[in-house]
């Protein structure tokens, strides 16, 4: 599939990987909402939960699929952006084409790049530390990821970084979820409208949910 030049096939891959990532975001959000519990409870439960995920073989397989999805989605994003560049002729001197579409639908690569940079920081600060770093353990003997996360969100600049990245993700999803269904061939007028609405609701809920966590933690300290 990596060598397929056909844009429709490439976009199918983009849509499927994008939808899988979108599905993952739901689970990831539910897991992280545990951070908002009262401190003592949250600490033990969150560390237990992280430990549980790290040890489970099914979760390990899903995690690998997830990494592959991020990779394929990004590769396709770059491939299609280059293809688009090649297909475009010289620029228009006066270009008012933006009136006909939403800005975020035209800037999926820009939004995606913000998400990608964010993912690098996100992986390095939490995932890498948890997996390969030396973390102290809590009283149940689980690695204390909770304290690491809380300490990170104690810094204002870090919270702001998160909020910006999540807003970019929100707009990416606002267009992405609906677009993926189009790409996969949903042509029914009514269902298409329903999916557009559900995609919007989904994007708003995800954005609110993910933004709430760092802000809540910051304000509660």
């Amino acid at each position, binding site marked *: 599939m990596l060598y397929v030049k056909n844009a*429709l096939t490439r976009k*199918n891959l983009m849509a499927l990987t994008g939808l899988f990532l979108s599905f993952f975001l739901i689970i990831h959000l539910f897991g992280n909402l545990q951070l908002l519990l009262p401190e003592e409870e949250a600490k033990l439960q969150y560390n237990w939960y992280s430990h549980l995920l790290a040890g489970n073989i099914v979760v390990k397989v899903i995690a690998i699929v997830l990494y592959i999805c991020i990779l394929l989605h990004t590769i396709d994003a770059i491939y299609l952006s280059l293809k*688009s560049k090649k297909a475009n002729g010289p620029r228009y001197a006066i270009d*008012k084409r933006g009136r006909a579409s939403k800005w975020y639908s035209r800037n999926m690569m820009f939004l995606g790049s913000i998400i990608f940079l964010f993912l690098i920081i996100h992986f390095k600060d939490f995932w890498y530390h948890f997996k390969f770093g030396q973390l102290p353990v809590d009283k149940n003997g689980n690695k204390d990821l909770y304290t690491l996360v809380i300490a990170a969100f104690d810094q204002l600049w870090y919270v702001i970084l998160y909020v910006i990245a999540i807003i970019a993700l929100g707009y990416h999803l606002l267009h992405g979820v609906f677009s993926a269904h189009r790409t*996969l061939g949903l042509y029914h007028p009514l269902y298409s409208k329903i999916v557009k609405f559900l995609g919007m609701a989904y994007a708003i809920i995800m954005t609110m949910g993910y933004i709430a966590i760092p802000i809540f933690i910051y304000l509660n300290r």
Partner: protein
Amino acid sequence: MMKIHLKIWRQKNSQSKGGFKEYTLDDVHQEMSFLEMLDMLNIKLVKKAERPVEFDHDCREGICGQCGVMINGIAHGPLKNTTTCQLHMRSFNDGDTIYVEPFKASAFPLVRDLKINRSSLDNIISSGGYVSVDTGQAPEANTIPIANEIAEAAFDSAACIGCGACVASCKNSSAALFTSAKITQLELLPQGQKETRKRVVAMVNQMEEEGFGHCTNTEACEVECPEDISVLNIARMNYEYNKSKILRNK
């Protein structure tokens, strides 16, 4: 009478370097169509022994799809669902400056000035946009019953005049709206079923080969389309394409 300043893209051929040239017309009528205004300019240029501005046009009644140009950065100008030939000078004000550029895409090589070569669209149609029928006498109209809604839907897709505004309006220069309309108009009708799987694959492949970009579903094409062709045609094309790839039988 209106005074109109024009900045028109002049370019001798695809190899030479182009640029804007300024012209001012003092006696433009509101009732003139955009192309009549350009005609007026050309008469003046010819009288001065200058090379007239070349632009495509044919029917001048909005049905042939020849006349697309970029007017102030929008395909076919400011009005929605209107071809350049159906745009009138009453849409502009006295003293306006109007930029006129050709449609730009790698698959639309420039011929001269505002004139481009849109053979790439024709090539997509010839790759599969037909039905196999026996020639001979015109058959009885009701031999193949077709529900009215289906006929209407097919006609909505068939309304595409192939002007290329969708490509020009797309940030990726994608011909997805054009190609999908040409596929759907046949896909909906019983006559089109014979080639159904072959057609969509052939036409999509040809679209790729001509160097058009991919579809990001921004829906700009539908907004600027003179015939208001629905983007759901694109979803339909994707569906038919995926179906024929998955259910492939040689």
